């Protein structure tokens, strides 16, 4: 049996030494942290005050461009160019035509355009982002190669900003470039792309987009096809026709049905209301609601009996949308349709219509 041992200190030796060593490290860390927290606070407060002072001077000054080119411009220190651009970019986004020209003149007069061109090459994301936006407004074509490069960066926001700048500098050339990059950039949200491309205008983007849609395959195809919504109807039609006629790719066909607008393609749409995949039937039914005429009632009534809830729902809504349909006829329909689910769905949609009025 082991003897009774009552050691003086179980923590003697390594344990205590290590612990006290750690305490020293911790003390240093705490001091550093406190310094940093308070220091950062001071820095941020200082920056804020500086910004406010700067703005108080320059915002009213720039505001005068809405009427005239400002006669006198104070000096702009190099380190304040970013603050200047922050204000300037907002003005550019809010104004059109002559005011924009005057803003650009002001920027050139202050050599901001040159600084911005240099900043585009800098590493810091913040400065770069602001500079890229400014370059887009300035229309500085000299920076084009840099913008192309940045548009290929992995980072989403920066690359997208570069794409937008290119579209603003030269709509046609920019559209070609951006659209050719689309297939690789799954991370560029279609929602934002659509705005940018719409801004460039259908004339600039039609050719490139139609061409890209024709070649598109794989997972990126639906995105490109959806963007066809922004293009002239007649330009998009042939591509959409091609896909609806021959393709069996569910995603591509669905995307086409979402954007189809040409009534000449109605037959192809009608055919798709019996596709075996519900997503395609769904979009076909919606398209009929958009473009269809009285003769399409038959297809939609048939779709009311679809096995899938969504198809039934959209079919009912599409019916309500058709030109010759009115509340009375809808009511009558809801009594004549055989299928119980179809009737239920019609009743729901009728109630929706009534409430909406």
């Amino acid at each position: 049996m082991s003897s009774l041992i009552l050691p003086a200190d179980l923590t003697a030796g390594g344990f205590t030494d290590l612990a006290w060593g750690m305490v020293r490290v911790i003390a240093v860390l705490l001091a550093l942290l406190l310094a940093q927290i308070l220091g950062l606070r001071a820095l941020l407060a200082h920056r804020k005050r500086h910004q406010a002072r700067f703005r108080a001077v320059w915002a009213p000054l720039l505001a005068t461009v809405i009427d005239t080119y400002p006669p006198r411009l104070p000096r702009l220190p190099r380190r304040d160019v970013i603050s200047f651009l922050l204000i300037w970019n907002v003005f550019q986004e809010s104004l059109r035509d002559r005011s924009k020209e005057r803003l650009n003149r002001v920027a050139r007069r202050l050599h901001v355009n040159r600084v911005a061109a240099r900043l585009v090459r800098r590493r810091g994301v913040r400065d770069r982002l602001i500079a890229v936006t400014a370059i887009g407004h300035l229309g500085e074509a000299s920076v084009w190669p840099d913008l192309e490069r940045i548009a290929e960066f992995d980072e989403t926001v920066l690359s997208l900003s570069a794409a937008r700048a290119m579209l603003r500098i030269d709509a046609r050339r920019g559209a070609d470039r951006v659209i050719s990059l689309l297939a690789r950039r799954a991370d560029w949200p279609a929602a934002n792309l659509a705005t940018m491309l719409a801004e460039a205008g259908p004339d600039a983007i039609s050719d490139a987009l139609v061409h890209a849609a024709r070649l598109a395959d794989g997972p990126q195809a639906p995105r490109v096809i959806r963007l066809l919504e922004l293009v002239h109807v007649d330009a998009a039609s042939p591509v959409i026709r091609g896909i609806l006629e021959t393709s069996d790719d569910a995603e591509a066909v669905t995307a086409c049905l979402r954007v189809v607008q040409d009534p000449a393609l109605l037959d192809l749409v009608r055919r798709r209301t019996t596709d075996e995949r519900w997503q395609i039937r769904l979009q076909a039914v919606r398209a009929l609601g958009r473009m269809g005429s009285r003769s399409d009632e038959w297809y939609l009534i048939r779709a009311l009996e679809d096995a899938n809830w969504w198809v039934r729902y959209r079919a009912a809504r599409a019916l309500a949308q058709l030109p010759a349909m009115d509340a009375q006829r809808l009511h009558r329909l809801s009594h004549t349709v055989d299928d119980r689910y179809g009737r239920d769905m019609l009743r729901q949609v009728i109630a929706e219509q009534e409430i909406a009025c």
Partner: protein
Amino acid sequence: MEAVEQAPEQSDVATRNVLVVEDNGIIVTLLRHLLERRGYVVETAVDGREALARLQGEPPGLVLLDVMLPYTDGFEIIRQMRSTPSWSSVPVIMLTAKAQERNVVRALDAGANDYVIKPFKPEELAARVRRFLP
């Protein structure tokens, strides 16, 4: 719904007053310059809450309202304005961004008198304001 034209109320002071409801200080500066140059008096509200607090007081001659405010829907503000008797006939011009043109229909339905899409031409905005406050 067509734009409702109302002659501005011939009340004493407020006829040249424009209330600008906008949270972006830079745009406020822009609008202030634009309007003051043309002889209007500019009041500002930086968000929906301030704007709604104004409803207790004297109405301005016109309200210039940004749809995209931080805490309140622009449409909600118009609705509340329209249900406050003294403010119900104050003309409202809404500022909205290009990509959201469906907002225009909503704006008119909610009771706005006119709208301006950003980016705008200063002269155009001034003309629209003049229409309600000559």
